[in-house]
């Protein structure tokens, strides 16, 4: 269970151009489910996702993960938390150009000091499951859009994170690929993972695999339904 209590995030605090990206949001996200944050651009959903994923710290309010208070932890503890709990799929995927798919996928495991053969076997198994095994040695810039996304998913899961966080995952995908992505998400939930994503794509929040949709506008929650 992830719990947010009156969380506010200000950018450019105290300066002209101050932005209230998230405004006193209280929220509970259940485990083993797929939750979607929806809303128009600028509604604060990406900022909220960053706060949930311990990528950004709230200006005020509390964030609890399984009853542990994580807001206010110093950066190095946040990194620990991020590393052990979350896998991220970014909107622009953020794979590192010039490195191979396999090198990109194993990246989050590099600082953990695990047996490299074991890490590689895990990565290959994950790529196999995502139909990417044949492209493991290929530099990531040669992948298609859908392949790039699946590589990013494989990277997010290499450390076996219980919670997958995805920011606008289908923004650049056609309908076929969107359905394929939803199937992957469904499979992950069935593996016992929690998926939290943002989207303004109706195909996503109407999909069968989605358990909860939270609607945002101007940094506030305006609707919540399952």
């Amino acid at each position: 269970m992830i719990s947010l209590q009156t969380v506010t995030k200000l950018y450019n605090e105290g300066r002209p151009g101050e932005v209230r990206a998230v405004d006193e949001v209280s929220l509970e996200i259940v485990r083993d489910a797929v939750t979607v944050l929806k809303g128009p651009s600028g509604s604060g959903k990406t900022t909220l996702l960053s706060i949930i994923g311990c990528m950004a710290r709230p200006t005020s309010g509390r964030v609890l993960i399984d009853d542990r208070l994580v807001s206010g932890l110093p950066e190095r503890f946040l990194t620990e938390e991020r590393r052990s709990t979350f896998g991220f799929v970014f909107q622009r995927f953020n794979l590192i150009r010039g490195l191979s798919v396999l090198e990109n996928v194993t990246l989050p495991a590099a600082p953990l000091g695990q047996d490299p053969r074991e890490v590689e076997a895990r990565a290959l198994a994950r790529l196999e499951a995502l139909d990417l095994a044949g492209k493991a040695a290929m530099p990531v810039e040669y992948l298609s859009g859908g392949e790039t996304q699946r590589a990013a998913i494989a990277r997010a899961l290499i450390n076996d994170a219980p919670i997958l966080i995805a920011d606008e995952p289908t923004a650049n995908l056609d309908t076929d690929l969107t359905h394929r992505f939803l199937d992957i998400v469904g499979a992950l939930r069935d593996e016992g993972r929690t998926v939290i994503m943002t989207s303004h794509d109706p195909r996503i929040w109407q999909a069968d695999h989605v358990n909860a949709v939270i609607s945002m506008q101007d940094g506030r929650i305006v609707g919540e339904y399952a």
Partner: protein
Amino acid sequence: MTPAFRRQRALADYTLAALARRRGKNIGLVVIYALVVFVVASALLFSSALRHEADTVLAEAPELIVQNLAMGRHDMIKGDVIDDLAAIRGVTRVEGRLWGYFYDSVNGANYTLMVPLDPDRVLAPGEAMIGEGVPRVRGMFWETAPLFLSRYSGDLVRFDVVERISSESALVSTDLILLNEADFRDFFGLPGGVYTDIAVTVRNSREIETIMSKASALLPEARFITRDDISRTYQKLFSWREGIMVALAAAALLAFAIFAAEKASGLSAEEAREIGILKAVGWNMTDVIAMKLWEGALISAGAFLIGTLAGYLHVFTFQAGLFAPILKGWSVIYPDFALTPRFDGVQIAALFLITVLPYTAATLVPVWRVAAADPDQVMR
């Protein structure tokens, strides 16, 4: 393999994969860096070997040289002072030295003519011992060829060469012509009873100051030169040459520093973004810094090893061919000597520190700023 070790290897792997993306540029960087190290290492190794050689060889020289000055310049010294000097406590031996230069108009070389001090080494009249360089510049291919010296047009003096001094000691003997005392005085028209200068040997070299002060009371006009003075002069001369060399290398070093600063510290927007990605996927600041340390350490250690090894080979197997004019100097009769290879651990360690540390540090400074930033920038 411990986890810590595996972590470092994984970070090194990532650094190398990242470097391999701009293979040409990074290999170029190592080559240029190695070249700079090579120049500095050559200068260090050559000078250190030569200084060591000079110190060892001249350790047997007389502790004190007494020269007479006239009008501020060197003049002959009278033989009577030998007994006065020998009477000073602590002095074991006092000998008058006879030496002079001879300019050979045949080839423009300068020979050093000398009378050996050691009674066992005294030559018979008409005999000479010559250094390795004399037959070389004179083209005396015939082993027993006599030596002819001409002081002026129509004059010719013949010496039978009884021995050519082994080229092993070329460093001190290459231009030497050793003669009998009577021949020497005759050749230079020198009256009896005067010497070029006086060599003093003492029992305990720590007493040299006391002996010098007593001797200068006896001979207020004279100039005293200690073996340490001579040794210091050589050390300075070689350091000066080494310094010129390093100064030349400094220009290259500066150019390299600009290049390296741009490469290593001027973190491009793309690199900053990559560090953001690494942080977002779960690397912490220490991981990023350790990764960048590997980059700096691998590049600079590689350049250090290549440069130092090339410098060693250059100095000791190729006789410092590239920088010989600077490091060795020149003369018409230059001794044909090979330096004894010398590997000074402290010096090599110092070279390691001045090459590897600054570069590695330079790669780190800007990373610190980026690595400390919040990773959520990659979300935007």
